[in-house]
């Protein structure tokens, strides 16, 4: 029994060390450029902005925003969305078809 326990222990220890040290032993790849982290952040911001634009429209249509407020907010949000899209484009790769998830312009 004790031999079995010892073997399993050694195996576990080995597995843990292998798992945990893998990133340290890996060939020195260059650290992800800041742009990768930025990109993820910008994409999250873009999704959030799209959602806000859609929410604002729904709020307007269900009576929670006056039309002046809505026009102002909608314009501002879309400008902000454009700014985010610009920054994403500046990072080098705008994936085509992304922007198709953007909300439609309101028909008003």
């Amino acid at each position, binding site marked *: 029994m004790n031999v079995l*326990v010892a073997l399993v222990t050694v195996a576990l220890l080995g597995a*843990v060390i292998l798992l945990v040290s893998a990133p340290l032993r890996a060939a020195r790849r260059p650290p*992800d450029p800041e742009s990768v982290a930025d990109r993820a*952040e910008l994409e999250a911001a873009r999704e959030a902005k799209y959602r806000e634009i859609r*929410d604002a429209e729904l709020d307007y249509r269900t*009576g929670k925003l006056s039309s002046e407020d809505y026009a102002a907010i909608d314009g501002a949000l879309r400008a902000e969305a454009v700014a985010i899209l610009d920054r994403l484009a500046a990072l080098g790769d705008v994936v085509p078809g992304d922007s198709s*998830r953007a909300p*439609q*312009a309101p028909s008003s």
Partner: protein
Amino acid sequence: MASLGSVCLLLALAVCVYGIGASLYGVRRGAPAWSDSGRRAVYALAGILTVAFAVLEIAFLRDDFAFNTVADTSSATTPTFYKAAAVWSSQEGSLLLWAWLLSMWSSLVLFLTRRRMRDVAAYATAILLGFGGFFVSLMIFYANPFATTRPAPVEGAGLDPLLRFPTMMIHPPMLYSGYTLCTIPLAFGMGALLARRVDAEWIRAIRRFAFAAWFFLGLGILLGARWSYAELGWGGYWGWDAVENASLMPWLTGTAFLHSLMIQEKRGMLKVWNASLVLATGTLAIMGTFLVRSGVLNSIHAFGGQTLGVPFVCLIGVLIAGSIYLVVTRRDMLRSEHRIDSLLSRESVFLANNVVLVALCFVIFWGTYFPLISEALTGKAASVGPPWFDRYTVPLALILVLLSGVGPVIAWRRATLANARRNFLAPVGIALSTIAVLLLAGVSGKPFALAMFGCAAFVLGCVGQEFVRGVRARRAMAGEAAPVALVALVRRNRRRYGGYIVHVGIAVLFVGVAASSSFQHAVEPTLSVGQSSRVGAYTVHYVRPTATVTPSNDAAHTGATLSLGAVLNVSKHGRHVATLYPSEGYYASDEPSQGSVGSLIGGQPVSHVAMSAGVTRDVWSAVAPNIETPQLKRIVAIGNRTIPFVHPEDALIAVAYLARSYLQHPPPAQFHFIVSPLVMWIWLGGLIVFGGGLIAIWPAPSAMRRRVSVLARGRRARAAQGLARA
């Protein structure tokens, strides 16, 4: 095998220590390889604890009584399902379950965020490993699940019969999932403050984690209430007991957090609130875990060595101090981007929502910890009872429900009078007419309940109006038929409409609570066979007694040696409504002083409730048979005198004789009947809440592509802005 388990614990602790060091080094020195290594330490921890948990589980299933926990909580005769679940019925096993669940959730979350939020995730890793290390240390130094006694005892003590209900055994893993999940938003919240990064990505991630915690914790609380009502012999679902309260408090702050996060996302406000709420939720969850196992408060859950109290208090102290420090030193990044323009605005309502939920949490906190507080302040420990809790939570609950109706409907920034009229006329009308109808129907005498019914009607009116308007808007935009529009509307705006459904569920739940607590009829008659009792509008007739002998015959499948009960006919206005079969189970005890026969039935008796549940009311019944009549006691005494312990089969025959005697000459038995209206609405409301929650969090399909004109419109808007400034 036990040594393997202990080795796993030591290895786990080492991995935690390493992981904390590696993550912190990686993030402070900008060395992502080390942070990655730290993250992998979490995966390793999960693996090691899985092995440890498996070792313990196998020990239980194999009846390895050398393990102290197995000997203490299981026996060879315990049914297999309960053997498997008995792992977490002890202090040691439950600590292992907690640590294991924490490691699994942490691994999952860190795997999902492995490429994102590097800095924040690294700090979060360190914090989560800190919790893991704490619980593993508790096991190594205070309550080791792998402690053994040799030579091993031949038989174990068996699982407490009160725990032999399926819901009872699922309750702890569910609740622990909720508690452990609360530590994840805490870790990411602290991580964000430490890394000084709070952005859209973090909001999206932490919302998901906080929702998962809210969901599982809420489910655990609801299941606990349901179990208490359906299985325990007191007929209630909430008693303001310390441990019930301990699980409710983090749920309340978690709810506040989920709502208030919306405001931060939309308007960059309430950031200090959000930081405080997420940290409070995690801290309250740890306090809840501590409460249940420290015996520090007088509650039924006063178990566990007092030795565990000190480490927990230290941990909680560190959490509170750390949280305050972080929020204070990072207050510059938590500054609001906008201000509240008007008291009548959606922002205001969300703020009010925060305040009410925190107030509720404070009331419950004060009442729960009052014995400690009063002891510290006056030297005498005193406790407050449910009437005190009800006095303060009921009005707060009313306001909360009201807000849950106002919130979805009220306008942003500032609501004008005309606006308010348009939006609230119909719901208020519905609420008032509901109250009027109820009063006319004779529902009176309970103003709070009536107020709650009105508030709930208001909420349903508001949410209904929202759906109607949304469908109308959708039809105007896309020209779909109404049902199609409804589905599309919900699909495209899941968070919003899922959230509205949650509010409906809450309203329904509170209607159930109000009705069942205010309009309940309960009696505790002592009835002989053939007698009846009136309870509310119902009549309960004691038809005849029942008895079963031997564990294999136990109708409730819990291994009771003897089960005595009753057949009850419930009728209303002469018409038969239901037949109920409540019973009381008598189990074997391990006290030889009770005699050969006495010890077969001398264990803790457990009441098996019988009820007829309906949408409009529940009829609940329990029986406490009188097993101590002189005649029955004589049978036991004679059996004890004449039957030796080595002939348990003969002793069982004596028990059978006792059962027959009970059936032939049944003494009057004490009954407890309760008729509660609308109890079912509580469970239904809960289901609606969780269904709505799932809708809200369900990720939108990527097939939602629409044509874009953002660029064009946006450019035009920017140009217009530029022009305006010129």
